[in-house]
């Protein structure tokens, strides 16, 4: 089922996979059940007390007892003996289907995936055709022509099932075909057959084994279904034909249907659980894939650990903004819950204040905790992330302890957010216009026409040349710079008091960056917003910010008015960041005269 190629050293994987299954709870039980069923079927001639086809009129529908362990069927045949022998035919039939499907699917998948070309086109098309009709209907139609042979039916079903392997192998092969190690093998003169055998088969082996278990279960089920319809070969015992006999006599002997149903159900469930267990184990051996940003414990962190929370705090300047205090973050901690129950802290004891009308830069390299701090203020941390301590006072209320319902009222209307990556932050399924109008209608409670009018005005305000056209466009139809303008329009649409901009220019072309920064400044001044500008770029800081907070490894290392930081950075990390930007701009000296400092700062990487 999984189409993902598994980058495993397969020879090791196969041995250890079997061993791992033996200690996997459901895997071990499934294997045991399947092993016992197979063994009982193989040993049927030894174990069965009667000939499975020996009928006797006097024993018709005999009750279970000492003579017949599970009773006798409508022809007076021993149910237990038939169950054992039926296992031989049912399992063998399913194996026939599996073999046919494997041979056709894997071979075609390898050739189509490895060579491509016309074979690829034709086989992909045939796959679509084979999967177009329900298997049962095709089998029934075929049965009308080829007769009642169970073996022939299973061969045909094998063909019908081959796309299951074809698709899997095809996807895996096309994924690795152009990998470097396959190229290397080709360059070193290995023939195609050897490359397929050595490098490609090993990649697809594990998923094919998993798929085989699933396919075997499907084959057993469909075969039982065919026989249950009474269309099977009556001369051989199968679980399906026993089911048929039991169902016909369900009023006279209700338990007759039970035994074959139990065996079929047991085998199908065991095969599916086995496939799941194998997938679990394979995924586990690939290592846990952890999403989300984490601060890696580094030497730097240890160093700052020793210094404790002694962040460098610069004195306020006389010219500083003395507007009302909008946001006061005190002692904020953010942590991620780990699967083992522990918590990994990514933000430690962060303090931060923002006044109305002030732009506060939050600076640091990736993983310094600046984005995590911003998300905590919005209370939009990724899953498993939570605020572990401290308070976030916003107009006298502690956002850290606000209910989700109350918080929803704060977001958008009071605190807004501009993301980093413009494209992925627009919902591809809705037009720009509807994405602008929806929050306005929810937050401001305005009518659709009113929202539309405001959305168009906003688009014009953020410098979009054809507001009407953009309004009706889908996100994939506009450029990244446009999308960022749309997101800015969305952020300011409900006239928030505090704007959190998370690297708003990083993903943009250098020419667009300066324009977007200008726009932000204009809007900030017009709406008298407090702004938290998350960035790793001191050029942007110099351009826009009034105050700066520098973060490293989840801690604040230095904070103060922007001039103080630039002129008199105390913390070595701050100096290093400043040096990085100065080194970068120094060789461009002559250009400084050519443009205003702001534009240049905007283009500094």
């Amino acid at each position, binding site marked *: 089922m999984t189409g993902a190629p598994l980058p495993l050293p397969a020879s090791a994987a196969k041995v250890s996979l079997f061993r791992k299954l033996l200690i996997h709870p459901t895997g071990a039980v499934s294997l045991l059940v399947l092993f016992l069923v197979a063994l009982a079927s193989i040993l049927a001639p030894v174990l069965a007390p009667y000939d499975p086809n020996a009928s006797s009129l006097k024993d018709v529908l005999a009750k279970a007892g000492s003579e017949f362990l599970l009773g006798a069927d409508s022809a007076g045949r021993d149910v237990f003996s038939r169950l054992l022998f039926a296992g031989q035919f049912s399992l063998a039939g399913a194996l026939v289907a599996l073999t046919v499907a494997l041979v056709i699917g894997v071979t075609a998948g390898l050739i189509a995936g490895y060579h491509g070309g016309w074979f690829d086109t034709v086989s992909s098309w045939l796959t679509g055709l084979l999967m177009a*009709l329900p298997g049962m*209907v095709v089998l029934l139609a075929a049965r009308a022509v080829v007769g009642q042979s169970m073996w022939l039916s299973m061969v045909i079903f094998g063909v019908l099932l081959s796309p299951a392997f074809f698709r899997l192998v095809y996807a895996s092969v096309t994924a690795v075909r152009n990998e470097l190690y396959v190229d290397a093998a080709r360059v070193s003169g290995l023939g195609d057959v050897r490359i397929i055998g050595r490098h490609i088969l090993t990649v697809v082996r594990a998923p094919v084994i998993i798929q085989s278990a699933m396919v075997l279960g499907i084959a057993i089920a469909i075969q039982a279904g065919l026989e249950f*319809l009474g269309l099977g070969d009556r001369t051989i015992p199968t679980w399906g034909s026993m089911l048929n006999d039991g169902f016909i006599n369900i009023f006279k002997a209700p338990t007759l*249907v039970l035994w074959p149903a139990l065996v079929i*159900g047991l085998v199908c469930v065991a095969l599916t659980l086995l496939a799941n267990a194998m997938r679990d184990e394979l995924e586990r051996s690939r290592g846990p894939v952890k999403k989300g940003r984490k601060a890696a414990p580094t030497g730097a962190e240890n160093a700052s650990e020793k210094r404790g929370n002694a962040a460098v705090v610069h004195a306020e300047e006389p010219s500083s903004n003395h507007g009302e205090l909008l946001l006061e973050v005190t002692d904020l901690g953010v942590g991620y819950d780990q699967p083992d129950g522990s918590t990994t802290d990514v933000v430690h004891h962060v303090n931060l204040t923002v006044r109305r009308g002030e732009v506060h830069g939050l600076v640091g390299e990736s993983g310094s905790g600046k984005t995590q701090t911003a998300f905590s203020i919005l209370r939009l941390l990724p899953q498993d992330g939570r605020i572990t301590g401290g308070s976030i006072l916003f107009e006298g209320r502690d956002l850290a302890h606000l209910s989700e319902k109350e918080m929803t009222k704060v*977001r958008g209307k009071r605190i807004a957010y501009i*993301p980093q990556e413009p494209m992925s932050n*627009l919902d*591809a*399924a809705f037009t720009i216009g509807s994405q602008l109008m929806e929050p306005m209608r929810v937050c401001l409670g305005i009518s659709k026409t009113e929202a539309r009018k405001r959305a168009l005005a906003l688009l014009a305000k953020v410098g979009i040349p054809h507001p009407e056209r953009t309004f009706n466009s889908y996100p994939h139809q506009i450029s990244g710079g446009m999308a960022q303008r749309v997101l800015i329009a969305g952020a300011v649409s409900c006239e928030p008091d505090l704007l959190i901009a998370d690297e708003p220019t990083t993903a943009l072309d250098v020419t667009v960056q300066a324009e977007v920064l200008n726009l932000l400044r204009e809007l900030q001044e017009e709406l008298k917003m407090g702004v938290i500008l998350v960035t790793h770029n001191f050029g942007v800081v110099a351009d826009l910010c009034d105050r700066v907070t520098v973060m490293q490894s989840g801690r604040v290392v230095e904070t103060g008015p922007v001039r103080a930081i630039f002129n008199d950075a105390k913390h070595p990390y701050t100096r290093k960041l400043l040096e990085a930007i100065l080194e970068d701009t120094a060789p461009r000296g002559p250009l400084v005269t050519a443009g205003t400092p702001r534009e240049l700062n905007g283009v500094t990487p």
Partner: protein
Amino acid sequence: MYRFVLRRLLSGVLLLFVITTVAYVLLYAGGGDIARRIVGPTATDAQVAMKSSQLGLDRPLLIQYWEWLTKALTGDLGRSWFNGQLVSTGVSSRLSVTISLVLGAVIIAALISVVIGVWAAVRRGWVDRLVQFVGVMGFAIPGFLIALGLVSLFALNLKWFKATGYVPMTTSFGGWAATVTLPIIALSIGCIAAVVQQIRGSLIDALRQDYVRTLRARGLSFNRVVYKHVLRNAGGPALAVLAVQFIGLLGGAVIIEQIFALPGLGQITVAATGQGDIPVVMGVVVATAAIVVIVNLIIDLAQGWLNPKVRLS
């Protein structure tokens, strides 16, 4: 948009043509001496030859096919070899039963899957693990075993429903509902199991997308974002699985109809298969292929509605 629909429509018609052609050739050329099978092993060679020419089987296959195709285009699918009934009447009179079953099962499965899938994806933890486990079971156990279990429990033991029989929807809706409840449950369980897995998986992926955070940051509630935005984005893959399940259900319905003695397409198929009544089998193949093509077309249109990129490219 029109070009999108037109292209899908054309490829659907092409698929229908290819399926029926392949089916015709395999059914008529693969069966050996059809006339001999009909008249029986004791008939003389002259009788076989007479039957053969009477049915037109002594002519070249291509000519037979051409005749069948031109008639089929006017809605005439020939007559049954065994009871002389018009294939088109036989098939269409049973089609409504099967379609009401399968459609009912798919609609119920879609609704339940969305609720359970969202629940599992949003709550995670033990809810998610329980849903996963039940899902695997529902997927693993063949539908007809579930049907047998339902019959013996609810019809034979508890006697809440009749075990067999069918009341058309047009006669009495309540009667219809009572006769199809168990079959629809039996059909939909496997379907639910498959679709829930897909919805859960794509929802978990979609919930991680950046736009979810951005929309919430604009003041939309979590539920609003999930049901309006995330579900719509996760809906594409789920619809694709639903389409595959629909096709599977057409096959599953054959057995389910047999268990509950419903006069659907399955019944006529099984009878025709047993006799080797090839015109009827061919009629069933045409009807099934037509349903598949229509369902795929509807799903494609729905995909276009969900995803503007599909629609506009």
